[in-house]
């Protein structure tokens, strides 16, 4: 009897321990970007940067391959860091850029300075489009497949590791 009681207490304590530290992992991963993973990209309409009459609707169904969506702005420091990686990806996958809460002139200088990897750049003046597609912050990158399904999502700047992952996905 006493032994049974001890065992129950033991199990109880172990479960508490497990849950507490499980949450510590969550706490450290506060911005879990994977909520949207494997969900269909919500429909949004982008107005082109260069031409107010040119629009693009995402997701693009019946697109043959994967494509990439990148949320960026000129005032975002990590966006500068990842720009190199975007330039590397430019020829491998179509990149749709969403310019977030930015001034056009600044965005243009940014692209002139660091290069333009975007097949199409859309404007998100008040940030509502980013919210629509469930973005957490910037920079943020999505890779969508031909069915409009988000197969990859990354919050923060792209780096070697994510670059590799993207390559794997689009191969």
């Amino acid at each position, binding site marked *: 009897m006493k032994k049974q009681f001890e065992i129950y207490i033991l199990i109880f304590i172990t479960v508490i321990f497990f849950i507490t530290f499980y949450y510590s992992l969550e706490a450290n991963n506060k911005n879990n970007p994977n909520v949207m993973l494997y969900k269909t990209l919500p429909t949004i309409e982008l107005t082109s940067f260069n031409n107010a009459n040119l629009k693009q609707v995402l997701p693009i169904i019946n697109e043959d391959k994967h494509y990439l969506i990148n949320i960026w702005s000129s005032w975002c420091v990590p966006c500068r860091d990842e720009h190199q990686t975007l330039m590397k990806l430019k020829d491998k996958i179509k990149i749709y850029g969403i310019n977030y809460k930015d001034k056009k002139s600044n965005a243009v200088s940014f692209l002139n300075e660091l290069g333009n990897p975007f097949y199409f750049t859309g404007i998100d003046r008040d940030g509502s489009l*980013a919210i629509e597609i469930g973005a957490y912050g910037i920079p943020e990158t999505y890779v969508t497949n031909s069915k409009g399904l988000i197969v990859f999502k990354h919050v923060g700047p792209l780096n070697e590791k994510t670059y590799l992952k993207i390559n794997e996905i689009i191969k």
Partner: protein
Amino acid sequence: MNPSRKKKLSYFLVSIIIVLILGKFVFNSLQKNTVYFFSPTDLTLNSETPRGLIRVGGLVKKNSVQEKKNEATYAFVVTDLKNDIYVEYKGILPNLFQEEKGVVVEGTLKDKKFLLGKTILAKHDENYMPPEVAAALKKSGNWNKKYDQ
């Protein structure tokens, strides 16, 4: 109650008291030596000014680093892209300290916008961003009605 039981009980009570005293002792020391972390936005939103030693993290704002040669002090701004804080630091800047890169400064606040830095925490990797800084940046880049001007 027989004597052996009495003995056991008294041992038990004494141990509890010792444990409680030690526990209090440990807890006190812990509280005294706990350093809280804030992002510049946290400080802006805080109604009171945190006292004592704290840590502030963010990115070193571009073009903000100045050296006050005659005072052997550096001044720079730490930002989380939403709010800034001005830091003065007496000492050597560690190797991994760079503009537009992550930094954590430990020091005391003169006021909510002014930190007297005692130590600059450097990490090993140039690409490494302290997790607290990354979280702070994401929080501030987040569109959040609460932070809206």
